[in-house]
């Protein structure tokens, strides 16, 4: 009888191992852009839906068999992501009404915690600033402060901000930039909470930015703003003076239709996600189209209303594929200037 049990357990383990290897092979079929290029610009590394990223191995499978799957949160509509530099990153989920915390361990991304469920209604932006996690709330119109241990602290009061959206920290002076779409401007504050400046559209007189959606900073000190309804990218100098811009409203490559996300790679190129195109276009700072990838859809490498974009220090690009309820993570190979 004992022998029979041993054989049964061995059979189960071997079966698990075999099926595990099969699914792993499928999962690791890499996706590149361009697909046929010898040295693709981008490679899809992970598709994050919540919980743990797809990974395999004998131990986790046996552990799951013995103890059951761990209860984890799944992403519903990820809208923003922030990294804290120690392998941990935070995904603001507008429909879940909270923030999901993930820990990168090797090639795994494990959901380790969630927070803000009580305090947040519809997170819109998130950033790590001064050892705190700040989350903007698109419904409440507030910025909530949380400690690094996920404890709610209070609301960050910012003058002249009506409804904070995306949050971004300028690495040059550690100022926090707050995108305030309904007020048509981007406000920056220092660590004391004082407003240090506002980005408005000076290209034609006093005209304000139409609907700023996102902001990022280039290595040479430029502040770059995506103006969604104007379908333009506006480039500002570090002293907030307007320098230049580019864009156009159309449905052809090089134009914008419903641009939502902006991020700048380590080599200074501007990545713009477009919800209508379901793709990401790459421009240089003069507005020349360099490349685009993705299309509308639900398969890997496709997007449904892609939103915010974030680069980490290793040039990994996190794309909030919000209406596919996932984050797609690409490895970008810097092309240089």
């Amino acid at each position: 009888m004992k022998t029979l049990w041993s054989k049964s357990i061995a059979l189960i383990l071997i079966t698990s191992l075999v099926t595990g290897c099969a699914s792993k092979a499928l999962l690791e079929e890499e996706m590149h852009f361009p697909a046929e290029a010898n040295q693709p610009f981008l490679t899809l590394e992970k598709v994050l839906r919540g919980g743990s990223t797809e990974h395999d191995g004998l131990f986790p499978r046996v552990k799951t068999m013995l103890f059951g799957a761990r209860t984890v949160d799944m992403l519903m509509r990820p809208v923003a992501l922030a990294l804290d530099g120690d392998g941990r990153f935070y995904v603001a989920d507008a429909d879940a009404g909270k923030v999901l915390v993930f820990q990168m361990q090797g090639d795994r991304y494990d959901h380790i915690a969630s927070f803000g469920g009580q305090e947040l209604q519809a997170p819109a932006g998130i950033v790590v600033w001064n050892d705190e996690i700040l989350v903007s709330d698109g419904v409440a119109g507030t910025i909530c402060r949380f400690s690094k241990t996920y404890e709610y602290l209070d609301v960050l009061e910012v003058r002249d901000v009506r409804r904070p959206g995306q949050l971004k920290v300028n690495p040059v002076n550690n100022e926090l930039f707050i995108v305030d779409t309904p007020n048509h401007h981007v406000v920056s504050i220092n660590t004391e909470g004082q407003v240090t400046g506002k980005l408005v559209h000076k290209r034609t007189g006093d005209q304000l930015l139409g609907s700023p959606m996102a902001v990022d900073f280039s290595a040479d000190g430029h502040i770059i703003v995506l103006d969604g309804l104007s379908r333009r990218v506006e480039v500002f100098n570090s002293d907030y003076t307007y320098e230049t811009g580019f864009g156009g409203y159309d449905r052809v490559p090089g134009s914008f239709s419903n641009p939502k996300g902006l991020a700048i790679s380590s080599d200074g190129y501007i990545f713009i996600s477009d919800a209508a195109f379901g793709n990401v276009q790459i421009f240089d700072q003069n507005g020349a189209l360099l490349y685009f990838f993705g299309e509308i859809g639900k398969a890997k490498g496709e997007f449904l209303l892609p939103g915010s974009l974030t680069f980490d220090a290793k040039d990994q690009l996190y794309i909030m594929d919000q209406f596919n309820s996932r984050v797609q993570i690409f490895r970008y190979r810097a092309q240089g200037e």
Partner: protein
Amino acid sequence: MRLKHFFMILVVTTGCFAQAGADLENKSKIAFTPHNLVGTRAVVGEDSLLQDFTLCRVCHIPSKMTAVEPLWYRKEFVRVFDVDKHVELEKHHLFPADNISRSCLFCHDGSVSRGFPHKEELKDRQVSLLEAGSESVPNLHLHLFAFENGDTETRAPSEDSELRLEENSRISCATCHDPHNNEQGSFLRMSNEGSSLCVECHQMANWELSAHGNPADPRFRDVKNLGCAHCHDIHGVPASTNLLAAEETTVCLSCHDGSKDDMDEVASNADLENVFEKPFIHPISWNSSREMPESMDAWSRGLGAERGVTCSDCHNPHAASDQNNGPFLDGSQVFVSGVDNEGFTKAIVDYEYETCYKCHGMNQSAMFGRNVGQLFAKTNMSFHPIEAPGNNPYVQSLKIEWSEQSLIKCTDCHGNDDPLGAQGPHGSDLPHILKQAYAEQPFAQPEESELCFQCHVQGRVVQGSGFKYHKLHIEEAGYACSACHNPHGSVEYPGLMDLNAPFIQPVNGILEVSQTEPGHGTCTLMCHGKVHPGQYY
């Protein structure tokens, strides 16, 4: 012939222009809505028709520019992006994917427009019964699906309806909303007063006579006006299915809590919230994070552990009514599914017990439930008349309002012990959710079984009507009713006799009560040391 063709062309052309004119007239109304992001009404002429079409560009993507060839990789030259690409999604995909909804959601995802569709309305929407620290499942899933055959309560809008469907009969934002016209408010294609828009597709049985759809009490007219939206979040659903605005129990008790709803000022019907705080309840609280009463431990070994219970197990909120009460079924339980006395499921119950049998009968889909229903079978030797009139033609102790032909309901015995509180078998301070005291111990005063004497005249029972030794057993020996009787029925014995009590033992291996004629027969048993060897009564 040529003249005929000319007139045909003229008619068609005129029709086209008329159609185009009507179309422009409707679309020009956008100038007076929040969707006019240009912000000036100068976009329309004196005839109120659009003359400046700039504002159209907010949503309608132009196609004038020439494609730019990307500098990095020119093998994938694309002339135009397919912004109308169709995406086929799984049935339970959380969000819409049709091209019209996609263009709406560019703004209405919380970026340009405040909040995801109507999410801001969820603030303080319902009284939360969840304990602090517990997290409700948040907003998800939109009101998007394709109409399917076989759903008796949902149908596609008729051809003359103001509502419009997308390809493959799918719903999109534009089904209910006309982004150019805000005359009805919320850009609706038609007025939704009294949920008139909702019922274009949703045909709920008895809605027009229901307490929620058409309350007779004028205090509750607001419920009619708000209609479906009172309980349902049209776009998103937090914790539950069916687009409910919150977890089902929370939704129901937010009004039926004996007070006024904070937001909608709708007077409540009954204080069920307090009833469900009682020690003996139907365990709806298991569906929330509320603590289960200790008295409910028994359920953890039985049916409750398998499925729990929700309000809609016993009530159809679209049909429940105070206008069509029947003798065997209260209006609050009409149009509810159930299980009949043979264990077959029924889409709509005819008798109250069929609702109870969902859990307490021969419901094959419910595991481990106690089949109380088997004790009411009319093939039994005796039973309380739930399914059919009783077997005993002479029940001399019955009160005047009852007869041997009467039927009773489960709720004649089970319900709130507070006669002034919310009625129904929701909860009670007494075990088994009984309305009145029922002594389960062998010895008790008759007053401790007052439940029985709601139908049976106590004096007649004690004095021996029906069974001449009642006086001896009750008054002199002090036995309770439950010492000898099962309140539901008896498969083998007459008079609801229950011989399963540990103090009742066989005599010479025989345990029997027989009836030779009404009120007379023999007993063969030993009870508390007293031997009845085939004793005639």
